[in-house]
């Protein structure tokens, strides 16, 4: 369990590599800064308010308080917390590593044009308040849990929550300069495909911890099944995405292959422990196909999502959540409950992200100036270059 926490922590490097790899070098420092900020502040916020907000009932016995506060349970170290499987501290840290992920997803979608200050404000509110409140509805034993909604490791609670905010942010910000020309999407290639690839493999590694650890017990039977479904879905997602994009675009597109793997992983996350391997492969394969169409569709909507965050996390997150209703080996899981769950999360995320971004847009502004965008956020917001020893092309 503690190892799983370490692996989930490591996913942040995966996200960072993926995001910088798929964007231009002139914004690299900015993206890294945002990601490092998200990890550190996310952990601190989760310590301050998030964990109590998210698991209110669970701690009544310890804390007796469900309002935000900085008092952690005083005797959470009793080793028989969680029937001996792990301690309160481990639980906190594992969940805390998740918490930041929702903001990281947004970070990728808004890359290369958002002002860093407003993004920090968004992160603080979203990670500190919205994510734990939304999370408590299911994982904290809230009304969606009562309803029978199932989300094993966060297809909806983590990925869609990030994905919906990404969608709102992308709409609020508008596309990068040069992304659409006469209404037609243009390619803005990422600056380092090796780093992007490494990012995806690191994320996959992290998913061993993400899904493996979410079993929240050391039950080897369930954990090992979970890892098998996770890996098979990822593999199927990748292969199908590569295949579909080859058929569609006559090209062996590595970035689609990578996105397909991620799509498969996100898709299986909601039900990794209640699937047969066959279903896992199917869920992954459908997620892989969805990715290719979703990326193109989002382009056609004139939304500019540099790293494909919406396609991966929102579209496949929803698919995965609904898939539980279809493929779960547990008859208690119904498509209806899953559907309600998706809707509820859509509601809270869309509304809160809308409020945050549009208030900021009207007040401080959320987008950098044209000059900054053209010359790169690194030079203007950080006064630094990511690769000062290399000769660069600019676009």
């Amino acid at each position, binding site marked *: 369990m503690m190892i799983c926490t370490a692996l989930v922590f490591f996913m942040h490097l995966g996200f960072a590599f993926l995001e910088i790899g798929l964007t231009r070098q002139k914004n690299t420092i900015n993206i890294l800064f945002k990601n490092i900020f998200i990890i550190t502040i996310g952990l601190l916020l989760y310590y301050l308010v998030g964990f109590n907000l998210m698991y209110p009932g669970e701690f009544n016995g310890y804390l007796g308080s469900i309002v935000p506060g900085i008092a952690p349970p005083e005797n959470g170290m009793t080793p028989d917390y969680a029937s001996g499987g792990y301690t309160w501290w481990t639980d906190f840290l594992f969940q805390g590593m998740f918490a930041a992920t929702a903001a990281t997803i947004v970070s990728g979608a808004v890359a290369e044009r958002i002002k860093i200050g407003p993004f920090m404000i968004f992160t603080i509110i979203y990670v500190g308040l919205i994510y734990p409140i939304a999370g408590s509805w299911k994982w904290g034993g809230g009304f969606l849990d009562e309803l029978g909604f199932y989300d094993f490791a966060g297809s909806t609670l983590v990925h869609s929550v990030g994905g919906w905010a990404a969608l709102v942010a992308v709409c609020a910000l508008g596309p990068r300069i040069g992304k659409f020309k006469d209404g037609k999407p243009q390619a803005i290639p990422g600056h380092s495909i090796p780093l992007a690839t490494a990012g995806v493999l690191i994320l996959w590694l992290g998913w061993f911890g993400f899904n493996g650890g979410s079993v929240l017990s050391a039950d080897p039977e369930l954990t090992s099944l979970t890892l098998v479904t996770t890996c098979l879905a990822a593999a199927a997602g990748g292969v199908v995405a590569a295949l579909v994009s080859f058929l569609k675009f006559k090209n062996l597109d590595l970035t689609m292959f990578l996105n397909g793997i991620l799509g498969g992983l996100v898709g299986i996350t909601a039900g990794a422990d209640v699937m047969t391997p066959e279903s896992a492969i199917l869920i992954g394969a459908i997620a892989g196909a969805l990715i290719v169409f979703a990326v193109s569709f989002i382009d056609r909507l004139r939304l500019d999502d540099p790293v494909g965050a919406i396609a991966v996390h929102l579209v496949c997150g929803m698919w995965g959540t609904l898939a539980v209703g279809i493929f779960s080996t547990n008859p208690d899981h119904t498509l209806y409950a899953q559907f309600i769950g998706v809707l509820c999360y859509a509601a809270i995320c869309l509304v809160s992200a809308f409020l945050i971004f549009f208030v900021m847009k009207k007040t401080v502004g959320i987008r950098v100036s044209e000059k900054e965008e*053209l*010359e790169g956020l690194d030079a203007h917001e*950080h*006064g*630094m*270059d990511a690769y000062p020893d290399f000769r*660069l092309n*600019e676009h």
Partner: protein
Amino acid sequence: MKKIEAIIRKSKYSAVKEALHEVGVNFFSYWDVTGIGNEKEGHVYRGISYSTSDIQRRFLSIVVNDDFEEATIEAILKAASTGEVGDGKIFVSDIKECYRIRTGEKGGETLR
């Protein structure tokens, strides 16, 4: 034939490219250079602030027939200017002869 060398801001490259296409100049080569001039850029690194006058710029090398010279220069001057220090320079010089490698032919008509 004239060689027109323009040193411009990188962020103005797209504008210049379009302006050149508009006046019918569809062939050129460019690369990135570091320019030393009046403009300074501020940087901070690990607590040390420093300013450098070594600024990355784009260097365009355009060989045109004499009758295109004026239009080309006009186009660049208009598209590349921001009015702030550091907009760059244009230098014009003579080209004696020119060849198209594909066909081996020489002279001004290889330039279009």
